[in-house]
């Protein structure tokens, strides 16, 4: 006789006792018919189960529609069972936590970028503090697709009113087609020379300002809207890289008296339904040396103006290497940009007040920069120092409005707090040909790459 039979027996006894007690408590010796039928039904069901157990020795499996409720006793877990249960729960929790951590670690979204705080004191101008925040958003959608975007927040003073200027520096999607070709589209840093695409972030640029061909009013495009194809290939020890693009192209300034004939690179809509084509090819005979050639051809005049084509070409050279004899890293760079815009007559009717104006619209400019960091010096302070000097110039065509050839010589001293955190101090000797006042300036800048 197993415990199940014993439980049923107890239940029968309790049922019988309960019915007798109820009878005794009632003044009426008879129970209602309905109650009687219910108790009889329970009794018959239990009796049938007891009879069945007597013959089979096994408890009858309860059916889903069983109306008979049998009392149950709480099952007491053994110590071993309790430990097993606790272990299972612990494993589940631990796996869940690991999965959560793994999901966070495998995130393909990353915010990088840089920030600067600066001070500039230039002759003839009020000294000024400045700040800039430039977050870069990277999202690797899969092994081939990557989205990259950069937004620049910069303090500006426009017509005497301070405001925060926001610029979308680039936002594009690239696709690794195969080992040698990457395709992309959107707004991208123009692969022209080295500075605009690779060196302009403040924590990379070794001086607080940009060289003349790449600064405001410079000769080279910094960003473009269109699509590109690029990649690299190694042939034994020599590596080649390339980047070609089609973009909306620059706009020729035809209406502003002081800027007529210059190219506007930050217009992001095509003004003549004619696209610019450009690119850069680079060769690295040894890993530390790179030579590059860049070009861009475009029809640049707006609709309604005479046809004007522009060709911009650039050459660049860089050499970066640790030199044992000098006990440090030498960083030498030189770039030159040539801009040739077809001659045109600006304000031909004189209605804008500065024409008719015609000149030979050829410009060129470049820079040479040398930096040295004694990275193997025994003094930690010296190891973190970097000495920089740069000469840059720009030459504008004779007869052009606001023609001001300019050249500058800058000396800088950098202190690296971390590989991507630097404090820069620089003094610039500047001279404009047609300007009696020197453009000398003192800079302080802290830059953090993150």
């Amino acid at each position, binding site marked *: 006789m197993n415990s199940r039979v014993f439980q049923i027996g107890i239940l029968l006894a309790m049922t019988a006792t309960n019915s007798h007690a109820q009878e005794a408590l009632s003044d009426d010796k008879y129970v209602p018919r309905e109650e009687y039928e219910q108790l009889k039904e329970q009794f018959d069901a239990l009796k049938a189960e007891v009879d069945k157990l007597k013959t089979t020795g096994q408890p009858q499996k309860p059916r889903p529609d069983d109306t008979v409720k049998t009392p149950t006793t709480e099952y007491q877990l053994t110590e071993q069972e309790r430990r097993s249960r606790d272990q299972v729960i612990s494993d589940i929790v631990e796996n869940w936590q690991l999965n959560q951590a793994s999901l966070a*670690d*495998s*995130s393909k*979204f*990353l915010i990088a970028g840089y920030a600067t705080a600066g001070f500039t004191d230039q002759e003839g101008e009020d000294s000024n503090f400045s700040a800039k925040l430039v977050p870069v958003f*990277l999202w*690797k959608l899969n092994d081939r697709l*990557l989205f*990259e975007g950069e937004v620049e927040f910069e303090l500006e003073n426009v017509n005497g009113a301070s405001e925060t200027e926001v610029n979308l520096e680039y936002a594009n999607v690239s696709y*690794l087609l*195969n*080992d*040698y070709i*990457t395709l*992309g589209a959107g707004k991208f*840093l123009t692969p022209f020379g080295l500075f605009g695409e*690779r060196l302009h972030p403040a*924590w*990379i640029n070794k001086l607080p300002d940009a060289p003349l061909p790449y600064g405001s009013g410079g000769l080279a495009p910094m960003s473009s809207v269109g699509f590109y194809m*690029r*990649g*690299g290939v*190694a042939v034994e020890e020599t*590596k080649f*890289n*390339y*980047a070609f693009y089609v973009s909306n192209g620059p706009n020729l300034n035809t209406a502003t008296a002081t800027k007529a004939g210059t190219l506007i690179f930050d217009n992001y809509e095509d003004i003549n339904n004619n696209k610019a084509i450009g690119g850069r090819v*680079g060769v690295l005979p*040894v*890993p*530390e*040396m790179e030579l590059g050639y860049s070009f861009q051809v475009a029809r640049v005049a707006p609709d309604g103006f005479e046809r004007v084509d522009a060709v911009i070409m650039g050459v660049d050279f*860089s*050499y*970066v*290497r640790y*030199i044992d*004899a*000098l006990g440090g*890293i*030498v960083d*030498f760079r*030189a770039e030159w940009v040539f801009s040739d815009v077809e001659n045109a007559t600006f304000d031909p009717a004189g209605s804008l007040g500065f024409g008719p104006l015609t000149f030979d619209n050829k410009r060129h400019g470049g820079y*040479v920069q*040398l930096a040295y*960091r004694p*990275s*193997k010096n025994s003094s*930690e302070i010296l*190891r973190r120092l970097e000495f920089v000097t740069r*000469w840059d110039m720009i030459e504008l065509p004779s007869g052009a409005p606001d023609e001001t050839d300019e*050249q500058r*010589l800058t000396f800088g001293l950098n202190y*690296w707090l*971390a*590989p*991507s955190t630097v404090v820069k101090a620089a003094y610039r*000797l500047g001279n404009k*040909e047609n300007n009696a006042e020197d453009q000398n300036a003192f800079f302080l800048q802290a830059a953090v*790459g993150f």
Partner: protein
Amino acid sequence: MHRRFLIPTIVLVLAGVLAIGVSGCSVRAPGQGITPQDGSVLQAPVPVPKEGAEVWADNCMRCHNIRPLTSYSDAQWEVVVHHMRVRANLTAVEHKAIVEFLKGAN
């Protein structure tokens, strides 16, 4: 050229040429010249596989200082290197070597 810029400019160019001359423009032997620009780690270079480390150092140093390996997690390094493959025109072989090195050394 303005007279006062003439001599400093000549000196600047000559210094650059001299620096290149001193180094001999030689092809570097494997493992030679991997020098992180962070002064804090110069005294104790991290022992790492040469192949990926060299590719990493060569390509990063061409434009900027080398960041510490612990700057990013493995997954983040994958994103960063993918980004730099596009920006710096790295080859597929370089891309793979750098990612494997960073994951192995992180």
